[in-house]
C-alpha cells in the first residue's frame, strides 16, 4: 500500500463527514459511526484521524460560532475536499472488485 492510502477508520470518518453534510463536527461524527457500525470511537481517535486527513488534504475545517451548551466554545466543522470523494470511490471500487465472485464463497 502507498503512503497516502486510507485506513479503515479514516474511511469511516470521511464517510460520516459526507453523510452529515455541513453539520459534521466530532460529536455527530462519533454518533454516526456508532449508529451505523456499532463502533464506539473516542474523541481522541476521531480527532487524530481528522488531523491526519486534514494533513493529507482530504478534509478541511472551519470554526463555527461559540455556544453556551459547549461552555462558550465554538464547533469545528469538517467538509470533504473533492480529492477525498475520488479516493473514497477508488477504495470502494477496489473493495467491490475484490469481493466480486466471493459472495457465494464467503
Amino acid at each position, binding site marked *: 500500500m502507498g503512503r497516502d492510502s486510507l485506513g479503515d477508520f479514516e474511511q469511516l470518518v470521511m464517510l460520516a463527514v459526507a453523510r452529515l453534510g455541513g453539520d459534521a*463536527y*466530532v*460529536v455527530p461524527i*462519533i454518533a454516526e459511526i456508532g449508529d451505523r457500525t456499532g463502533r464506539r470511537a*473516542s*474523541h*481522541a*481517535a476521531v*480527532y*487524530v484521524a481528522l*488531523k*491526519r486527513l486534514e494533513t493529507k488534504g482530504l478534509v478541511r475545517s472551519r*470554526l463555527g460560532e*461559540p*455556544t453556551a*451548551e*459547549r*461552555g462558550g*466554545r*465554538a*464547533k*469545528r466543522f469538517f467538509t470533504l475536499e473533492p480529492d477525498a470523494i475520488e479516493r473514497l470511490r477508488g477504495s470502494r471500487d477496489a473493495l467491490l472488485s475484490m469481493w466480486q465472485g466471493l459472495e457465494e464463497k464467503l
Partner: protein
Amino acid sequence: MSRRARHGKAPDFATKLVTRLLPPPSRHDVLGDLEEEFQHLRRTHGGLRAWLWYWRQTIAFACKLPAAGLAGGLPEDPRREHNVIGNLAADIRFAVRSLLAEPLFAFVVIATLALAIGANTAIFSVVNGVLLSPLDYPEPDRLVRVYQYYSRSGGFESAPTNFDVVSPLDYTDYRDQLSTFQSLAGMGNYGPMGFDLTGEGAPQRISALYVTSDYFDVYGLRPMTGRVFERSEEDGNSRVVILSARLWRSLFESDPEIVGRTMTLDGEAWEIVGVMPAGFVDLVGDDVDVWVPHDMTPGGFNTRGNHYMTVVGRLAPGVTLAEAQQQLTAFDEQLARQYPESNDGRYAWIQPLQEDSVGNADTMLWVLLGSTALVLLIGCVNVANLLIGRGMTRRKELAIRAALGSGRLRLVRQLLTESLLLALIGGVLGVALAAMTTRALLRLAPQSLTLINDISFDSRVLALALATSLLTTAVFGLVPAFRSVGKDLETALREDDRGNSGSRGTNRMRSALVVGEVALALVLLIGAGLMMRSFWLLQTRDIGVDPSNVTTFELRLPEARYDTAQEREGFYQELRRRVAAIPGVDAVGAVQWLPVTGTYNVWGYATADPDSDSGWDHHLANIRVISGDYLDLLGIPLLAGRRFGPDDALGAPFAVYLNEAAVADGWGPGANPLGETIRSGGHDGEIVGIVGNTLLRQRSASPTPKLYFSHTQFAERRWSMFQLLRTSADVPGLMTAIRTQLAEIDPLLVAFNVRTLERAIGVGMADTRFTMVLLVAFGSMAGLLAASVPTACCRTPLGSAAERSAFAWPWAPARKRSSAWC
C-alpha cells in the same frame, strides 16, 4: 465522583490535562466537543457516568496524541512559575545535567556524604541495638544481675570493683528467704556446657545450659509447648530437658508431639519436657541448644565457698534497685553472722541486667559514636566548602541567568535542587554502605555486644540517615545559594576574570571551615594513633604464658561412662600418653580454664593465722586444676619447690602451687611459704611450689592470685578439661590423628572447640581490637576527607565564564586555570 461533576462541570484536572496535551489551535473546539457530550451524558446517564466517560476520553488523548505526534507540548501559561511539578522536573533535569558536566565535583560530594552517613548510620545501628533499645523481655527494667564481692574493709562498699559470681548456697538463701525478688535464677556456669547427642543421626556436640527451675520465670517467658523445670528437679538426678526452637526444628522436624519423647545425651535418656519459643536469647548468648536443671543439692561442689553461679533476678513489683540492694545487704550481714568462715565480708551487689549485659562496651560505643559524629561533621564541612566553591565559580552564570529574567527565588531553588539531589544520592549510597557495614561490624564485634538485642537496621536509623543527609546539604547548599545570588549579582557581571575568586568574607569562611576540618581530623587521627599504640602494647606485653604453637580442644566425659575419679583420671592419662606419641607433639597438658581468658572458679582460701579468732586468714584466688606438662608447655616457671609427682596421688594429702601474686597476697612479696598449709575447696593442702604469674586477661592491670591443684588428686569433681598440646611446628593432620586416638579409647566422645591458644586468648581482646579497627578506619576516613579539601575543594577556578570549573573531567583539553588556596 467529584463535587464538580455533581454540579454539572467536567473534571477540572482532566480538563487541564487535555488542555496541556492539545496544540493551542485545537484546544477550544476539542474541549467544546468534550463538554457538549459530557453535558449530554450527565443529563441522560447521570454525573458519575459522565465523569467516568470524561476521564476515559482524557486518558485516550494522553495515549493517542503523543503516539501520533500531535501532543501540544508545554502550555503557554503565564502562571508557569507556579507550576510546581513542571518546575521541579525542569530543575531536576537541569541539576542532573549540571552535575554531569562536573563529575569530579559530584563524585567527591556524593562519596563524602555516603562515607560520613554510612559510618554514622552503621555505628548508630549498633548503639541503638545495644544501648538504646530495651531488652527484649517483658518488663525489662525489673531484670537485674546479682554478683557477690568480698569487702576488704569488712563492711558494705558503695562502689565495689572485685565482683565475683555467687555461691550456690547463698543463692538458695536469697531465693527462698528474700521477698526482694519475684524470681531469682542461677546458671550452673559462666557459659553453655555441652552434651554429646547420639541416636538422632550422626553423633554431634550440642550446647547445654544448666539452670535452676526459676530461670524462665525471671525472663518472663514460657515454653511454647510443654513446661518449665520444677524445683524438685534440681536434685542432680532428673533427666529432663527443654529444647531450643532451633534444635526442635532441625533435629525433630518441628514435631508437635515432642513433649514426652526422650533423647540420648552423653549416653543417657533425657525426657523432653518443653520447647522454648524462637527468639529466646539467654544472657550468655543465643547458641544454647538445650536447657537442663542444675543440681542444687548441698554438698559436693555446692558449698558456701564455691562461687560459680551466674545469678539473674526479676525484682518484685514496686521494689526499686536501691531497696533491693538494701534488703540484700541486711541479709548478707545476717549470713555473715551465721557462716562467718565463708561469708564474713561477703556482700551481694545488684545492677540492671541491660547495663550488665553491655558491660564496659557502653564507653567504647559512645566513643565510636562520637568519632562517627566527627566524621559526619568533617564530611559536612567538606561538602559545604565544595558547594561554596562551586557557587563562586557559577556566579557569572547565575548573574547572566538573572539578567535574562530568572527570579532570585528561582535561582536559589535551582541551586538547592542540585544540593538536595546530591544529598539524596549520597544518602541512599550511605544507607546502602551502612547496611553492608553493619553486617561486617557484627562479624567483627565482641560477643558482649551481640548478646541480648538484635542489632538490626531499623526505620529509625534509616530516618536519621536521610534526615542527616538532607539537613546537611539543605543547610550548606542554601548558604552558597544565597551568597551566590545575593546583591552583588550585577557586580559579578562586571567583574574582571582575575578578580573572580570570591569576596573576602567568603574566603574567610572557607578558610575557617578548612581549619576546623583539619582540627577535627587531627582529633580523630590522634585518638586512632593512641588506640593503636595501646593495642600494640597489649599485644606485646608479657602475659606470663607463651601461647605460640599451642593447640587446644575440649572434651567432656559423660557421667554415665566416667562415674568415678579413677575412671576420669585414667582416661586423661591414656589420652595424654597417646597424644604425646603423635609425631610433632612436644608436650601435652590440660587445665579446666584456659590461661589469659578471664576469671573462673574464684574460690576462697584460708592461710593459718594464729592472731585471728578462727585461726585462719581468708583470701580469694582463681583455682586452676592442671594435669600433664601444663606448666612447661606454657612456659610458666616453677620458681621454688617441687613439681607434682607420683606421690601426689588420689587420696594422698593435697599438694598445691601458688603463684607469686598469691604469695604476696597471703604472706607478703618475696615470702617463702613452702610447706605451709592452706585450706580451700573443702581440703587442706600443702604448698609444694611457687610458680610465675599469669594475667587473667591480656589487659589486666596486674596478675591476680592463683592456686594450682593436680587433676590426679582433684578428679573427684567432674572438671571439663581443655586439652593443650605444644607442637614444634605446624603438624599436618594433627587433629585427625588425635581424633583417631580418641576414637580408639572411646568412640562416642567428641573433641570440640579446636583452636590455637593464641586465638583463644585473642577472643578476649575482641572489644579492644573492635574499637581500634573502627577508630583507625574513622581516623583514616577523616584524614582522607581533610586531605581532599586543599587538593580538590579549595581550588577555585578562575577565568572566563566559558571556562569549565576545576571539577570538569581531568582529562579534558588543557585550559587556562589557576588555583588559589583558601
